[in-house]
């Protein structure tokens, strides 16, 4: 059994028990990246020297008994929109092609303190805008289950890297499903925590009121352990929440007896692939067998979630991305005439088409005369959606839904019709609008052998219910390694 086929927790245990050295583990991971990433394209930056150097330090700290946690010595990858001091952080954009942050994001620092080893930065849709990881300026990442397909997005690089066993776990960010949807497409587990649970300090903002940092891993236990490490109250992030109980691994119990689980009919209506629908209902059946009470119900308002999401997300994005003007850092056009021209040229050259589309949308919905009609209305829809979830959680502990309405499309298919692509976010965006925690884990495969994701949604601060339910379901099936992870040379 190779080191990279182990889960993060298993590897951490073997490292603590001196069965595997940290340098050995990191070396294996770097070798896996070398062997696979040319075909896969999950990484934008790999820091071989830095990772090996850090491996030595962490090994010493483990030997001295200073590091005893479950993630000490475990190699990880981080989405390229989380700042890493001195290491290029591109956000998948030409705009930041040579940008080296002067500080490290709080979530990454928390993992470094826990002894995890940073291998490098993973590919993503430019500034996290997209559902396929094709809008990256550094080329598209491929789905390890089928290299002619997309891995999903925007955390496609992180999810593909975990599925392909290039790292033991990864960090992603989720603004409208950017962890859960690619996790579903890649057959891995991804968790979007309650808004404010993980500090956003150092996460390059897409839509501030929706952004969340979360783990991508092989299984639920790994996700729980990583979340436990990254959750913190951070004074540098005013929207960070002080939570008393962050011992998420305590919830890893194979017990759903008496839990009340709701299936919103809205999320399984027209537009959802038959294979996905069947897999979700099969999963519900498995949980019912374990003693959970399952009910279908109408959540309501789902048709407003996607438009409200795109209005709010684009409004915030237009403002958040305005700082990329080429004045202090980032891409600056070579020739220009005065600073207005410098702005225009630098931004025209630095940003890709999808980013420009969303900046334009965002500027439009906030412009004078349209603010009330679009932005304010979207805020009102957001409140109503939150209330619909409140009603649901008065009755249900957890909701079941697909992680995505379909399995992974072929490369180049989705971007042809942006509105259709936006509609694909219907299963995930409402969770961000309401700030809820949600998790996606594998629950089967379609007729093409592509993974299907099961999404679990809980009320704010109820990650433990999510983890418990997901863990119990996970016990009913084996983890399916993707063929590419095992035999990268045999291309599908």
């Amino acid at each position: 059994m190779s080191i990279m086929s182990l889960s993060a927790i298993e590897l951490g245990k073997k490292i603590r028990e001196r069965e595997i050295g940290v340098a050995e583990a990191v070396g294996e991971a770097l070798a896996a990246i070398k062997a696979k990433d040319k075909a896969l394209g999950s990484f934008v930056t790999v820091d071989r020297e830095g990772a090996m150097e850090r491996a030595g330090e962490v090994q010493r700290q483990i030997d001295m008994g200073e590091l005893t946690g479950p993630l000490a010595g475990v190699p990880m990858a981080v989405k390229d929109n989380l700042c890493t001091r001195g290491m290029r952080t591109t956000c998948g954009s030409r705009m930041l092609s040579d940008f080296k942050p002067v500080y490290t994001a709080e979530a990454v620092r928390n993992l470094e303190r826990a002894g995890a080893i940073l291998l490098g930065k993973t590919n993503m849709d430019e500034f996290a805008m997209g559902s396929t990881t094709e809008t990256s300026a550094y080329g598209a990442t491929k789905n390890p289950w089928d290299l002619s397909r997309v891995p999903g997005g925007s955390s496609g690089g992180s999810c593909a890297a975990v599925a392909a066993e290039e790292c033991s776990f990864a960090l992603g960010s989720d603004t409208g499903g950017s962890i859960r949807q690619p996790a579903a497409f890649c057959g891995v587990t991804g968790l979007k925590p309650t808004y404010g649970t993980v500090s956003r300090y150092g996460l390059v903002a897409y839509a501030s009121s929706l952004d969340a940092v979360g783990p991508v891993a092989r299984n639920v236990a790994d996700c729980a352990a990583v979340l436990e490490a990254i959750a913190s109250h951070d004074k540098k992030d005013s929207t960070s929440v002080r939570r008393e109980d962050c011992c998420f691994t305590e919830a890893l119990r194979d017990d759903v007896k008496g839990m009340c689980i709701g299936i919103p009919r809205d999320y399984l209506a027209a537009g959802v692939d038959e294979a996905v629908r069947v897999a979700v209902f099969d999963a519900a059946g498995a949980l019912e067998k374990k003693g959970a009470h399952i009910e279908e119900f109408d959540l309501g308002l789902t048709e407003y979630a996607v438009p409200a999401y795109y209005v709010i997300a684009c409004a915030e994005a237009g403002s958040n991305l305005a700082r990329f003007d080429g004045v202090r850092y980032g891409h600056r056009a070579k020739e220009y005439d005065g600073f207005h021209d410098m702005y225009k040229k630098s931004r025209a050259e630095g940003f890709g088409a999808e980013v420009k589309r969303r900046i334009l949308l965002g500027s439009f919905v906030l412009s004078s005369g349209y603010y009330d009609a679009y932005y304010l209305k979207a805020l009102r829809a957001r409140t109503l959606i939150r209330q619909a979830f409140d009603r649901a959680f008065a009755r249900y502990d957890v909701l079941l839904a697909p992680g995505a309405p379909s399995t992974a499309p072929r490369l180049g298919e989705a971007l042809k019709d942006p509105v259709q692509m936006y509609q694909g976010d219907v299963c995930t965006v409402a969770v961000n609008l309401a700030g809820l925690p949600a998790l996606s884990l594998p629950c089967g495969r379609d007729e093409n052998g592509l993974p299907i994701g099961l999404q679990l949604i809980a009320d704010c601060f109820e990650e433990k219910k999510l983890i418990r339910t997901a863990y119990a379901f996970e016990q009913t099936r084996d983890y399916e390694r993707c063929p590419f992870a095992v035999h990268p040379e045999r291309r599908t």
Partner: protein
Amino acid sequence: MGKRYETVIGLEVHVELSTRTKIFCGCPAAFGGAPNSHTCPVCMGMPGALPVLNRQVVEYAIAVGLATDCAITECCQFDRKNYFYPDNPKAYQISQLYLPICQNGGIEIETAEGKKRIGIHEIHMEEDAGKLVHDEEENVSAVDYNRAGVPLLEIVSEQDLRSAEETVAYLEKLRLIIQYLGASDCKMNEGSMRADVNLSVREAGTEELGTRTEMKNLNSFRAVSRAIAAERDRQIGLLEAGKKVVQETRRWDDRKECSFSMRSKEDAKDYRYFPEPDLPPVIISERWIADVRRRQPELRGEKMARYQKEFGLPAYDAQLLTGDKAFADLFEATVEICGRPKRVSNWIMVEVSRLLKEHGMAPDEIRFSPENFAKLIVLADTGSITNTVAKEAFELVFLEDADPERYVKERGLATVNDEGALRAAADTVLAENPQSVKDYLGGKERALGFLVGQTMKAMRGKANPALVKAILLELLHEETE
């Protein structure tokens, strides 16, 4: 016969708050420093950096709001004002539009025409921008972000002002209130207090407001006053000529005594304001307000009453001393050391004021210490030095914060009480001025003054004048016997 016009003025006043750190990060808010030395990822607008509100800014805003009779907003929020400019690091300024912290206040001003209340529409908190430095020779611009993120209060008045006199009175009153609260030093020349004037004219007696212009770059009360006069005349001139006033922003040039158009309404930017998602709403409880109120320093009215009651000062003195916070601070600090409130008051009103005027300085530019000032007053008040010497010594205290005791000692300026020396000097003066002696003895009392003066002069001002007079009288009476 020409029409009569009424001028309608509203003010937007920006005040830089005297907090130790910036509004959304821990960088020093202090003026100066090497370019970009007071910066961090937050105030430089680096990717991923987030703002954290400085609580002291909220407290100053509440304090100013309470002192200007405003309602404090229970739940206020920040908004983003989006615009591109190199001094604006995030390409948006965090400000308040929809729910400002203070609303619906007002202050009372007094002019030659009597008392009047000027409404305050709102007060909001925001961050300052950086500073562009243009290098004409190299034809490049550099940006210094030290000022980016320094906290500002913007105080927006109602359109209640009708003249330059009222406007200056309003500004002076506002400055005094804010200085008393310790919220800002309000120096217009250094930019810690800036005023933009909105002005329109209308025919006297009509209700409808005329088209208004906004005037920027006013760096002194004098500039405000002159700009108002010039803009009023310009607008009336346009109307009289049958032309229209264009709604625009203008820039005052104090040297040329006229203003220039900066941008018209057509170029007005759409700031696309929306609630700042990185900052939760600021909840201000009754308790917090009460707490700020309790810690509120003494304001002018209270100080004036206390000076009369506690120090027995006449109302005139109390009014003058409290009319500038720097005077009041100097007065209290000095009295704390040496007592003698009336003497201290006289010194401030007469000698300090005279030297300030002579040197073209404002009271807040006083640099000498209350310690040296107190020493000087004690020396003069106990007769250790004469008034002449005291005035001379004070010039050095004023300019160099010199130690008056040392100055008097080093130059041997202590009052001479030595009778032998004085008698010798008086003898010489009498011998040299026989006519004056004759005059005095002939009944001309005034001649005595001259003789005292001559003796004092001979003693280079250091003699105890009372003693000189007594000795002269004694010698003159001897002559008659």
